[in-house]
């Protein structure tokens, strides 16, 4: 029994060693890792400050969002199949409304991440994207894996423990459009009306 246990333990140690031994990343993945590391640290530094007025928090989040995220691509993604059913005018109206909602709902969330341990791990290519893996750990808390989907130096999606920001928003918006019986105009009004987040 003990022998087997030791064997199993050795096996586990061997696998965990093997997991860290290989991997020469191409330049693009290294670049993406550098970019996420830099942006992540700045975000944690500027958005977790204590007693900062809401407006200042929102403006620093806005600048980070515009610098690091491809907001128009995300906006297109979250609309899913409804994107092509929107007129160009509606599309142009939607993007700022969407960005504003992102700011309203995420600017405050970083308060949760005060003093967390942010680590960049592996990065790998997935079709046109580079997936940068990282972990966030609150002191004494569990290790939370966070994946960043990067393309051309801009973030397209964040996955926290397998939950994608873009997919969640897309599901919410799809349901909202359906509850407005597919009426995009009504949907845009509901969204900009600020039913949520305030």
């Amino acid at each position, binding site marked *: 029994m003990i022998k087997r246990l030791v064997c*199993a333990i050795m096996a586990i140690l061997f696998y965990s060693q093997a997991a860290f031994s290989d991997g020469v990343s191409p330049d693009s993945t290294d670049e993406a890792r550098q970019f996420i590391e830099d942006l992540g640290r700045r975000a944690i530094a500027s958005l977790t400050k204590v007693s900062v007025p809401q407006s200042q928090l929102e403006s620093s989040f806005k600048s980070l969002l515009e610098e690091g995220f491809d907001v128009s691509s995300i906006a297109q993604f979250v609309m899913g199949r409804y994107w092509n059913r929107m007129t160009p005018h509606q599309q142009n109206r939607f993007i700022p409304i969407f960005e504003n909602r992102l700011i309203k709902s995420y600017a405050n969330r970083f308060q949760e991440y005060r003093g967390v341990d942010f680590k960049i791990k592996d990065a790998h290519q997935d079709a046109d994207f580079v997936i940068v893996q990282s972990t966030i750990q609150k002191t004494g808390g569990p290790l939370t894996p966070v994946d960043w989907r990067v393309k051309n130096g801009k973030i397209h999606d964040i996955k926290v423990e397998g939950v994608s920001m873009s997919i969640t928003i897309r599901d919410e918006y799809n349901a909202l459009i359906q509850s407005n019986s597919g009426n995009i105009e009504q949907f845009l009004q509901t969204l900009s009306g600020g039913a949520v987040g305030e």
Partner: protein
Amino acid sequence: MNYMGKIVKEREFLLVKSRGKKDKVRKRRTKLKWTLNMIQSVFIFRRRFIAFITTVVLAILPIQVDALTATHPTGSADRLDVDEGPNDPLEPLNRLTFAVNELLDFVVIRPVAEIYRAIFPETIQHGITNVLDNLFAPVVFFNHVLQGEAERATVTVFRFLTNSTFGLFGLVDVTTELGFPRYDTDFNQTLMAWGVDTGPYLILPLIGPSSFRGTIGYVADYYADPLNIYLNNRHHFKYHYWLTVRYGLYTISQREKLIETLDNLRNSSPDFYVTMRSIYFQRQAYIAEKLKVANNMQQNTQPQKTKKTG
């Protein structure tokens, strides 16, 4: 079975007693009493029977529903590039249960979780979580075995033995310090590993977001747990009280960890029901992916490319 045994013994005892007195009336009464007891016991066992039947029906249903709705996938796949409706045919019922759960959470569970956070310092909270997690180890072990995860099963046994002794009944998670972290799993994940799909989304009263597969998982895990079996077979209130303590404390300690996360989600969501449903299916797909990776690692077919920095 214990209960049945008790009834049979009781009958024999009473019959012997009545035979000694040769009192026919008493004998008849005794028989009547025994019959009533039998009926009562059938009802007690019927509850388990109903639970069993429910489990079987729930197990068969998703397969049939999936067959019927082949063009309406379950949403458990990675849905990055395709738009598909969620697998939620019971949405009206689910929304109702969800609303009731939300109310219960607002009135009872969240406030109690707040009190729990306020009363206990973080170290004690960790201790409580460790004890509760350690109590789940037997079930976790069974599921690792059923999934064919030999190493994880071994680690779970090692963790359980070490933490229960050196770790003072699981209070201190000494094995994680030694480099053997907890591999959590449940019967839902076992079914997942066996290739069973989530089936339709189902909100359970008190427990929250789940699916047909998840429900089977909860039922199976509950009845397979040695501690639950032990406590359920003792027909005395004080044993059942410990069951309530166990699951009550577990619920509260888990809810405490999610206070901010759920508040934030609720505040930023246009439809909290849809948000939670989306997250549920994404999490299931993520766990399935992780299980697959773990299996591949075990078979040593897929080298994991990892580079660690910082």
